[in-house]
Each structure stands twice: as C-alpha cells, then as structure tokens.
C-alpha cells in the first residue's frame, strides 16, 4: 500500500432487510493517520455500517476496501490490517484478561510478547491476571482496545470508545488515540453520540441519520462554515432593517440578533447600528458547535 491510497474506503454501502433500507448508499474514505468520527442517533444505521465494514453483515450493495484489499474476497489480508470493537467490548468473561489477549494473539499469529506492550498502552497491566467477569465496564473497554491494538493494525474501528470511562479515562484514551494516529499513522474510525468527544478527538466527521450521510467534512470546516456574531440590542426591529440593508443573513430573538458575518466586517456594522440609535449592550462571536450543527442537520431529533 502506498501512502496516498486511503486506509479504508466504503463505496455506496447499502443494507436492505425485507423492505426496510437500514443503510442507504453510504460512502466515505479514511486517510492514513486520520481520525474519523461517525455521528448519529440510535437507529441511524451506525452499528449496521460498522458491522458491514468488518464483515459481520454482508452488504446488499456496495463494498469495502481496507488497505487496498477487498474485504469480501481478500478477507484475511484485509482484516489483518484492522483492530476493532463492535458495540460493547464483549470479551470472554470466564477467562482472565491475559487469557483473552492470548486467545486473540493466537488468532492473529502474533507473538505473546506483544501482550505486555498493549496492556501497558491502556494501563491495564496490573489487572491482567483477573477474570474479565470482575472488570468494570471501563476496564473492559480498555481490554477491548488492547485487544484491538494486537498485531499493530493500520486501521482501528471503535464503537463508542468512551462508554463506561470516567472523565480522566476518556481523556487518557483520547490522548492515546491521538498519539497512535500522529506517531504511527494509524487511521481511526470512531462512532459516538458524544459530540464534544468527537469534536475534541476527530479530524473529520460524518453525520448519519436514517441510513444516509447528511454531512461530511473536516471538523474545523464544518464548524467554521457557520460563524456568526451575537448582538444584544434594545431595538431588534431597527437593527433588523440595518442588517437587511447590508444583505447579511440573520435570525432574531426578543432582545438578540445573530448575524452571519466575517470578523473584518463586524466593526462597520456595529458602527452603523450605533449611528442609527440602536444601543448595543453585547457583541460576541459564536462558533456553532457540532451539537447545533447536528440538531440542524437531523431536524431537531435528539442524539441518543
């Protein structure tokens, strides 16, 4: 694989069960070293898409290419490049952490000496000899990630990796993922409903709703595409007229007006408002959060 070709390509993935279209022609690409966020409410088709990526579900149409290998025809080569957690980090509860890692190392043909290294990465070395049944959800999450890191995959697919972790744990895992992406050029696919988490961790994000991708782009791009300034004024009516004269888009509230405006154009607008007798109490730039964008894109249906 050369460095320019994408690590993961999903081409118009579709899953139809009976007459219901669960996933509708979903396409995206993951470049080397990129962290990609997959965002959507429950039942949006997130998990079905992930299951198609890793070969648990056969797509009705479309295909998946991993590291240049066709995931169906060259399953073994393709999956050798992937570490994943699908839905919950379900491991064998009746075996110890170490036995679980040994189990999956055997399937990969990876040396047992890898185990202390991956356990160290997720800070789980001290609990390896205990049965997984005694682990908390957060520890199972860590063990799941350790398992996914066995064999040095080029692509990591994690379903809700923040689940069950406390804030410190979330931060630790986020830093680990960023490090893996930056230092080793690992591509990471994360699905989540925690918008703030995606915003902090990911480079690029796709929003999926009712089986279709509504938006896709870099996190920065999606956020900065909707910059606006919030103004608190005493006379919203008159302010509106002035904004309209300048052909700017806006929305209003009882005492506030939000104007889509670039930074250099802000002072003249404020001056114009003041000149025409509108009192401006407060002016602030506001970047639209992923959450606003999500609500807008899905038409107000809540996440989760």
């Amino acid at each position, binding site marked *: 694989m050369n460095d320019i070709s994408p690590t993961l390509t999903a081409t118009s993935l579709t899953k139809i069960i009976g007459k219901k279209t669960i996933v509708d022609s979903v396409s995206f690409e993951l470049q080397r070293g990129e962290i990609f966020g997959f965002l959507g409410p429950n039942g949006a088709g997130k*998990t079905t898409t992930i*299951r198609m990526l*890793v*070969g*648990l*579900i*056969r797509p009705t149409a479309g295909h998946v290419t991993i590291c240049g290998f066709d995931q169906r025809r060259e*399953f*073994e*080569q*393709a*999956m*050798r490049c*992937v570490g*994943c957690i*699908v*839905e*919950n980090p*379900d*491991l*064998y*509860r*009746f*075996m110890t952490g170490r*036995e679980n890692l040994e*189990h*999956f190392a*055997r*399937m*990969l*043909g990876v040396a047992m000496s890898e185990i202390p290294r991956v356990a160290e990465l997720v800070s789980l070395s001290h609990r390896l000899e205990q049965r997984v049944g005694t682990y908390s959800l957060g520890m199972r999450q860590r063990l799941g990630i350790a*398992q996914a890191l066995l064999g040095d995959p080029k692509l990591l697919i994690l379903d809700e990796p923040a689940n069950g972790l406390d804030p410190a744990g979330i931060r630790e895992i986020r830093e680990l993922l960023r490090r893996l992406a930056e230092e080793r050029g690992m591509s990471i696919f994360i699905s989540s409903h925690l918008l703030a988490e995606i915003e902090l961790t990911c480079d690029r994000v796709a929003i999926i709703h009712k089986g279709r991708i509504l938006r896709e782009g870099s996190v920065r791009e999606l956020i900065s595409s909707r910059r606006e300034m919030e103004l608190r004024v005493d006379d919203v009516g008159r302010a509106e007229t002035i904004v309209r004269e300048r052909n700017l888009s806006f929305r209003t509230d009882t005492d506030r007006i939000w104007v889509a405006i670039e930074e250099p154009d802000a002072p003249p607008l404020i001056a114009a408002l003041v000149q025409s007798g509108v009192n401006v109490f407060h002016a602030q730039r506001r970047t639209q959060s992923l959450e606003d964008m999500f609500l807008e894109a899905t038409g107000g249906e809540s996440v989760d």
Partner: protein
Amino acid sequence: MIIPLIQNETLKILRRKRFAVVAAILFAIIALVTYSQYRRLNELRNQNWRAEIQQRVAAMQNTLRRGRVNETWARSMRAEINRLQFYLDHDIEPNKPTAPIFVRTFANVAGFLLLPLLIGILGSDIVSAENAEGTDKLLLTRPVRRWKVLTAKLITLWTFATLTLMSGAALAYTVSAPFLPRGGWAAPTFTGFSVAKGSIQIDAVRQLPLWKDTLIAYGLEWFALLTVACIALLLSVLFKSSAAAIGTMLASLIGGTILTRISPDWTAGKYLFVSALPLADYYTGEPPPYDGMSMLFCIGLLGAWAIVATTISYIIFTRRDVFG
C-alpha cells in the same frame, strides 16, 4: 494455522467448566451403578445362577405365549431368550459382575442416552454461547475465515466426545475395580445372536475374548458419538441460546427413543438418527426397532446424518449476518 484455533476452543470448554460437569456426572452415575453391582455380587454368592436364568427364560416365554406385547418387544425378548439359552447350553455364567464386564456393559447402557446427552451438553453451546455473550463479534472479525473457526470448533468437539467416552470407560474400571473382581479381560463373549423369521441363528454367534469385544463396542459407540457431536454443532449454530440448543437435543433423543418404542409400525422412523444410535446394543444382539436395519444400514444412516448436519452448519455459519 488451525492448531492455535483448536487450542483456543479447548481453553474455552475447559474454562467454562463444561468438561468438569460431564466428568462429575459420569463419576456420580458410575459410582451409583457400581454400588448396585457390588450388592448383586454379594447376593449372587448364595445363588444358583442356572436356576435363576432358567426362571427368567420361562418368564419371558410365558409373556410371549400370552401375546400381549407388541412386535418390537417380542423380537427383543426372543433374542434375549436365545442368548440366555446359549449360556445355559454352554454352561457359562453370564451375569457375574466383574470390572471388565462392567466396562463392557457401560458402552451399551450409556450409549443410547447418557453419553449422547453429555455430548449435547458439551456441544450445544459451542457456537450459541459466543452468540449469547457477544464474543462472536470479535471472533469473526479476526483475520480468520469463518469456515476455519467452525472447523476448529467441530474438531474440538470431536476431541471432547472422544475424551468423554474414554473417561467413561476409565471411570467405569477404576471406580468398580476396588469392589468387583478385577480380572477377566480374556473371558469369552458371545455376540451375533440374531433372529431371522422368529428362529435363532446360532451359527451366526461369534466367540470373542472380552477385551476384543469391548474394543468393538466402544469403536461403534465412538462413531455414534461423533455423529451426535455433528448434530449438536448444528443445533448450536441454529439457536442463539444454549438452553434452547440443549433442550432440543434432549427432546430429540428422548422423543426419538419413545417414538421407536411405541409406534414400530411407522417404518419411516428407521431413518431417525435416534433409531440407529444404540450401535453397541445392535452389535450385542439387541434387534433394532425396525426391519431392514442392518449394522451397515445403521452406520450409513448415522454417517449421512453427520454429513447433512455438518453441511447445513457450515452453510449457515459462513453466510449469516451477525446482528447484535
């Protein structure tokens, strides 16, 4: 490449303590039977075995004369009468319990229900438990083709079926040896009593040393258990819950046995795998429940069941979508 997978499956069965349960059940049952045999041995010391056997033969002949038994039972009784008569004619005491005879009898007694049931316990959750616990999502997203995963499971199951049979035999000997006479592996046995058109075919009777006879009986039983393992695998693939898989196995074993006993007229019943399962019994001389069930037919039937069950398992397992 398949060896590490077999190692994994073996570890899972051991860690789930399934084999420990099987060994414990075997031990408990064998200990109980040994105790009853031991008591019988003490009673026999004061008895005339010839008189006892003549009595049993007479009782069975009376029942037959009254004609109230159905054809299956009647055939079975006629065969038994012939066998006992043979022992009387040759002055051989057939029922004296010894440890080797106990081992030999175990193949017949445990073969048609107990051992298949234990294999059912071992096998029914080999796939369904991964389903129920959600571990299939990891198992099937590793760079190993699904058919290889299933093959490792089948081989592991066969290995444990073999181990179960061997531990049954070993336990039967070691538990009974302190209480019953230990020797007698070379004692003569008589097999091949068969009933053709109501009369006995004495010429078909073969005399074998007990150890050889035991090996043959266990060999047949082993083949039957491998078939049961294939069917358990299929149930495990079909059902998501282990309980449903084990339940179905139990129901088909018991249901099939009852069916062959109460409706011998329904001849299609001879194609059920349960009809052919007591291979060791048929070898000893117990007539199969339906006409036209030769030893070769039974072995072929079991083989066919095994192949069909395994094929369906592979088709379903390698193609199905794995949902949550």
